[in-house]
């Protein structure tokens, strides 16, 4: 029987605020353990949490960017459970009244677009970090992360394949990073994902029993874990057994999901409104203010690039993969007036250099103005495209302008017909054998002559001019 997977995702994104959600401790990653702690985030008796306004605003931005409705009023609730990374014995989260609900994002697939529903986006605090001793029966607790603001983005069970799930995740990731409210670093845990997966016979309306997958800390692991889990459930169903509803952990090294039995006690979080925090009321003016602060979002930008710059969708996708890269490209396009050529240089050489050194576009030594200038130099014939390939290497290495590189290397293109004619004549004279063969019908040798002229001029000759002159002079008896 053909089965259809049904996938829903819960994403936790750490917000890029300076301070924690309910206290003024720093959120900086990588500090000495337990150095960013205070009585509030350590859950001392008698302390009072006070909400960071920026957390509300960042959550509103994400809600607006994903077409969610922002609730007029919302509040915080306590989610009660015991774990050593949670000093208060409860996590402050949102439950019955989240900040926002009922949104969507559109994902692009080979077969077109698909809309994935977002159930809700709410604010909550992160827990601390645990390290387990390999030899002693001890665990070590670092509370620096306790109280770092998170948003939880819950999707509808709208995805029907691993590819759709990964496309959705990438879309959320891209929006969060574009909004500059999350750094998106999956390895450091700034962007985490849990998945709910079930299978049902194709055509069936009812959902099957689902499992929840955790511990997937890269897009690739999400893909692998989902693929594995879908196969596992299919095998169970095909052999006539029932899937057990449980939480399963992805084991990257073994490449499989494993049951979390043992820790799998029935949870009873006993949510109730947190009496330490007052309700949040969001009026239209505030929402409008946040709306105005939104940047152009990746999908809109992509469509605009395709439309306005006449570049292929793939190129537009690469160039809009980050706001900084898109900005860089637009600057080069604007200054050079040649968007298509600008796109080729940015996509080709600039990105290749950066990727080789794993550098970000923000650190690119070739400034947009320099690249635009180089493109103009090619356009007006001062340098050839081939020379430019060498010049840009130098520009990247030294951070110098194309003019400076050209002057240093004496790389002005030879466009003077008289000078070039002389060189062409010399090359022809020096290669009588090839000349005879060429005239005897071996036309492929034309390329050989071009190469010889280029060599003689150290690549500085205008290729078009060489072609014209060679054609003319080779034909002459």
């Amino acid at each position: 029987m053909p089965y259809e997977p049904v996938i829903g995702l819960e994403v936790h994104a750490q917000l890029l605020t300076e301070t924690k959600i309910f206290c003024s401790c720093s959120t900086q990653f990588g500090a000495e353990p337990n150095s960013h702690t205070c009585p509030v985030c350590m859950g001392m008796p008698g302390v009072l949490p006070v909400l960071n306004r920026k957390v509300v605003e960042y959550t509103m931005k994400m809600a607006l960017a994903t077409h969610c409705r922002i609730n007029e009023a919302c509040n915080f609730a306590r989610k009660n459970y015991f774990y050593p990374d949670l000093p208060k014995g409860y996590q402050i989260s949102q439950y019955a009244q989240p900040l926002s609900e009922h949104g969507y994002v559109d994902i692009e697939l080979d077969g077109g677009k698909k809309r994935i529903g977002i159930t809700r986006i709410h604010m909550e605090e992160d827990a601390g970090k645990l390290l387990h001793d390999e030899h002693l029966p001890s665990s070590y607790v670092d509370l620096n992360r306790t109280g770092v603001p998170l948003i939880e983005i819950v999707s509808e069970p709208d995805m029907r394949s691993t590819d759709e799930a990964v496309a959705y995740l990438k879309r959320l990731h891209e929006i969060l990073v574009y909004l500059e409210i999350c750094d998106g670093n999956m390895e450091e845990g700034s962007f985490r994902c849990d998945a709910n997966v079930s299978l049902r016979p194709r055509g069936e309306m009812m959902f099957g029993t689902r499992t929840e997958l955790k511990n997937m800390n890269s897009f690739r692991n999400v893909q692998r874990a989902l693929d594995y889990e879908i196969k596992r459930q299919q095998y169970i169903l095909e052999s006539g057994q029932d899937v057990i509803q449980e939480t399963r952990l992805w084991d990257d090294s073994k490449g499989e999901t494993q049951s979390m039995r043992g820790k799998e006690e029935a949870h009873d979080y006993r949510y109730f409104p947190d009496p330490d925090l007052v309700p949040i009321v969001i009026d239209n003016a505030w929402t409008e203010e946040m709306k105005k602060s939104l940047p152009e979002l990746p999908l809109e930008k992509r469509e605009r690039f395709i439309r306005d710059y006449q570049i292929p969708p793939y190129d537009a996708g690469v160039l809009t993969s980050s706001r900084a890269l898109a900005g860089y490209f637009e600057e080069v396009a604007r200054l050079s007036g040649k968007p298509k050529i600008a796109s080729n240089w940015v996509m080709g050489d600039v990105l290749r250099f950066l990727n080789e050194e794993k550098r970000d576009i923000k650190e690119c030594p070739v400034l947009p103005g320099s690249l635009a200038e180089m493109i103009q130099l090619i356009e007006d014939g001062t340098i050839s495209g081939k020379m430019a390939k060498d010049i840009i290497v130098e520009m990247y290495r030294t951070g110098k302008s194309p003019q400076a590189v050209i002057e240093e290397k004496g790389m002005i293109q030879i466009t003077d017909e008289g000078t070039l004619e002389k060189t062409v004549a010399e090359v022809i004279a020096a290669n009588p054998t090839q000349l005879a063969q060429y005239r005897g019908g071996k036309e492929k040798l034309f390329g050989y002559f071009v190469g010889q002229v280029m060599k003689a001029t150290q690549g500085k000759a205008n290729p078009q001019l060489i072609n014209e002159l060679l054609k003319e002079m080779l034909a002459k008896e």
Partner: protein
Amino acid sequence: MGIEKQDTGLKITKEEVEYVAHLARLDFSEAEKSKFTSQLNDILMYVEKLNQVDTTNVEPMSHAIALQNVFRDDSVHDSLSHDLSLSNAPEARGPFFRVPKVIE
């Protein structure tokens, strides 16, 4: 899951006390369990009086004081010194709190 109200006259049964005790990771003797069952029943009966108030047109509220939108600015203040943070810990090791091993 959770505590379902049962129509037994009693608000809370011994099983519910045991359940809540387990959630709170507390261990009670049989005598304590009966004592807490009866005490919790007394408390809930007393609070039950609130149900006599007519709240037909009153919106449920999550806070007793009519305050809303209390915020802080996002600016960093000093945290506790590291030694002070750990000073109440029953056990510490290096910069960490130390607890009995919990396996994921």
